[in-house]
């Protein structure tokens, strides 16, 4: 099975279990709504100022200096809240990852009970895996910095600005690739832990390493195929956003609809990462695939 075939098959499987995306979306909306609540009061305070009329057409610094001077401190509370909710969101998504893998591999349709059951079953291991992944990321980054980024920086320092800029872009690209590679490894670790019911996250991690190194082109190709589609969706969103003036109620709600479609598509792609990699993993390890009752 090629990366593209795995990707396409995964899309069909997600469509059959689209409730997963719906669930993730509802959760995202709820959390974002909690973070939006405190903003309401601040907007009310500004709405009866001349500043509000100016900010309809765009964000001009001229009119908001005093606002940030006067109310800037209160944003610290919002940032603290964002950090808190963000951590909760990450943990909850770690919890839901087990459900996503479970429903995709065991269920014909999305059903809440097995979804939550699988989530609960794997949560402890996935949390440990999350911590391990952060440690690995830090180690990986330091090695990468020493072996790749520092020589690139030295090269850039002695180059003319054109080349320097290109090397800086290359560094950023390489870091993004590194993060992608790391993320991919831990996706496969989750898949391995789930499918083989591995208790040790280290075993799961090394198992995923072995798998990725055995099929480097396909695994990386599949991961970055998903990655590219996310990037394309982002660009598409930016193009669409520019079509809305956001100065009237109609355009605001029109833009909101586009934004929600974009968020839905991002959550779909989040599921697609898991689904397509799981499809590919089971293709290479059919013995680990759970025979679905409906197949």
């Amino acid at each position, binding site marked *: 099975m090629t990366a593209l075939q795995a990707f396409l098959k995964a899309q069909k499987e997600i469509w059959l279990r689209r409730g997963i995306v719906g669930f993730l979306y509802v959760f*995202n909306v709820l959390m974002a709504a909690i*973070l939006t609540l405190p903003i309401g009061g601040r*907007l009310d305070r500004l709405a*009866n100022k*001349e500043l509000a009329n100016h900010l309809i057409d765009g964000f*001009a610094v*001229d009119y908001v200096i005093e606002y940030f001077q006067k109310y800037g401190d209160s944003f610290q509370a919002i940032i603290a809240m964002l950090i808190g909710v963000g951590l909760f969101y990450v943990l909850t998504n770690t919890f839901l990852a087990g459900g996503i893998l479970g429903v995709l591999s065991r269920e014909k349709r999305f059903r809440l009970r097995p979804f939550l059951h699988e989530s609960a079953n794997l949560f402890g291991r996935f949390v440990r895996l999350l911590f391990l992944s952060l440690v690995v990321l830090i180690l990986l980054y330091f090695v990468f910095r020493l072996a790749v980024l520092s020589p690139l920086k030295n090269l850039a320092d002695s180059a003319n600005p054109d080349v320097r800029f290109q090397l800086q872009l290359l560094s950023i690209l390489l870091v993004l690739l590194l993060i992608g590679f790391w993320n991919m490894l831990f996706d496969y670790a989750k898949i391995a832990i789930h499918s083989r019911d591995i208790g040790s996250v280290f075993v799961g991690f090394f198992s995923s390493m072995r798998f990725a190194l055995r099929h480097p082109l396909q695994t990386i190709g599949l991961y970055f195929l998903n990655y590219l589609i996310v990037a394309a969706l982002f660009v598409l969103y930016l193009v669409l956003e520019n079509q809305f003036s956001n100065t009237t109620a109609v355009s605001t709600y029109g833009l909101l609809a586009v934004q929600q479609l974009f*968020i839905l598509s991002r959550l779909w792609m*989040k599921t697609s990462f898991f689904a397509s990699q799981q499809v590919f993993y089971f293709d290479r390890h059919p013995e680990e695939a759970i025979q679905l009752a409906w197949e």
Partner: protein
Amino acid sequence: MLGYLRLGCALMAVCAPLAVAQAQTTIFREPLSPRLANYHIRVTLNDTNKTIQGQLRLTWTNPSDDVIPDLRFHLYYNAFSNAKSTFIRENMGSAPWAPDNGWGWMDIRRIAVRGRDVTDSLRFIAPDDGNADDRTVAQVMLPQPVQPRETLEVDIEFFAKIPRNHVRTGWWGEDFFFMAQWFPKIGVYEPPGMRFVPKDAPRGQWNCHQFHANTEFYADFGVYDVEITLPQKYVVATTGIIEREVEHADGSKTVVAHAEDVHDFAWLADASVLDYSDAWENPKTGQRVAIRLLLQPGHDIAKDNYFESAKATLAYFDEWLGPYAYPYPLLTIVDPQPGSGAGGMEYPTLITGMMVYPAAVLTRERLRMVETVTIHELGHQYWYGMVANNEFEEAFLDEGFNTYSENRIGDDLYGRVGSLIDFWGFRASLESVRRMGYVTGEGQRDARVADPTFAALNGSNFAYNKWSLALKTLEHYLGRETFDRIMRIYFQRWRFRHPSRNDFIAVANEVARQDLNWFFDSVLLGDGVIDYGIARVRSAPVSLFERGPDTTQASGADSLEASAVDSLSASDTLTAVSDTAKADTEATDTAVAEKPKLYYHDIVIRRIGEVAFPVEVLIRFEDGTEKRKRWDGRSRLHRFTFTYPSRLDRVVIDPDYKVPLDVNWLNNSWTRPNEQFKRKYRWKWFFWMQSILALLATIS
């Protein structure tokens, strides 16, 4: 028109720096300045050791009727000689070069006056702070004092270790030298009547400050003839014009430069820079100014931006301040090596620009760093280069005037909103950035613009930001025509001289034909701020209002401001009450025939800041009718009352933003709640939160 001559050979030398030896150039037929301090310098650059060795002949004229017993010199490089210099101490003790070979210093090896060696009499003094470890000012006692109006020759042999580039002077990398404040430079002797020396003072005084963390320079005008010997690989740019370059058999070359009627001399030696030329011509006067651009390789994207903004600025000043406002034949723009820290600085006829490479590429012309820095530094040719105030003491006289000019030119060229940034819906004008600096800066009430810059806590904020905003405020108050007349006369009267604030105030009062001292006393000499705010807004049907205050229909003024009236002390009584305009009555009369519902509007505005300044108040009703009322702003409170057949829509103090010195525009208005604003930003925020959360979820 100025009587000056630009010989053809000068321009040829400019356009072809490698031209062979020419006869010595004269730029101006008649001197434009008093030419009190004239230098002939021979200097050799050792680019390996990063040192210079030089011989200097200074021809200096005593401008006073005093007998002067000593001479004083700036040795700016010594600010970087140790961690105890005043410069380093005032920079919180931070010496950016400490771990590296970055220190710099200057050593006077021999000094002779009228041919007589006086090296032994040289000593370092610290007139500002008494710091015995500071060696930035040297005093030489003369065996025979300088007689009134006498011209004497001073010969100096000096050696200097060039510091690693900091505050726009020194070396960077292997082959970049930006040389500013690199030679012993005589201070300014101020005779009685000049600047702050009283006319009846028994004698004048040296004005030769130490090098401080927050200050720049002050020097007399003169003629500079400078011969720079250095390896042939370097491209050289200098203040003034390059007369010729002579190559030597040992692989070195000598660049001979000449500048007239300037008060400083800077030069660049860069082995990798590219050399471009263009020119600005004034079709009305026929004046032609050659523009030389030294551009870093790979910075081609900025080439046109440099040239076009420079030409537009030259044209603007010419139109604004008078023909031949920039009288020199050449303007040199240096695009310094990235990381060198040499960007954004002005020297006579030579400026350094600034290109932030990735930002310039990514934003194209939406972030106008190259343009605005060029406008700013070129503006300094007028405010500093020609109108040569003392930057140690009154930096606002150049930085403030120049920032005002930059904002104005930026608005004119690129539009009022977004003149600095106009990128993906985020817009910032040059003035807004200055205003942000002022209103968010600390110590608004702890210092005065007029405080000596070198000692002021808030020196640069006030010099750049507050004073540029003050000039804008004054422009709005007087009207652009009158204000421009003031600027033009001030420029023409004081160019090639050293004005103080009093000289500007005198011109302003004279040209405006009114006493503006109230403005300067409070804004320049005072430490108060301008701040007006809405204290209370009530708007209700007349019938309801007549039943008493408890039953009035509050129209939405926020509770904080609504309570401001109540929180005032007894002395803050409402001094101006009831302003029912004729127009209101007329409007009411017309409306009565149709029996409309009448509304009673009661608006109280308040002076919160210490400084009183006239302001305009816009009152708009829901039927679209607008009234503009002017208030002299003197009392603490002012009330407007109206009876009108429409509800109030908004009240805005200073609706056209004519008082950028107002430190809080947020309290200047009350409007009916803007529902679209709430809708737009609430959903925008919501989407941002969704996106952030979705991004965070990628790690789980």
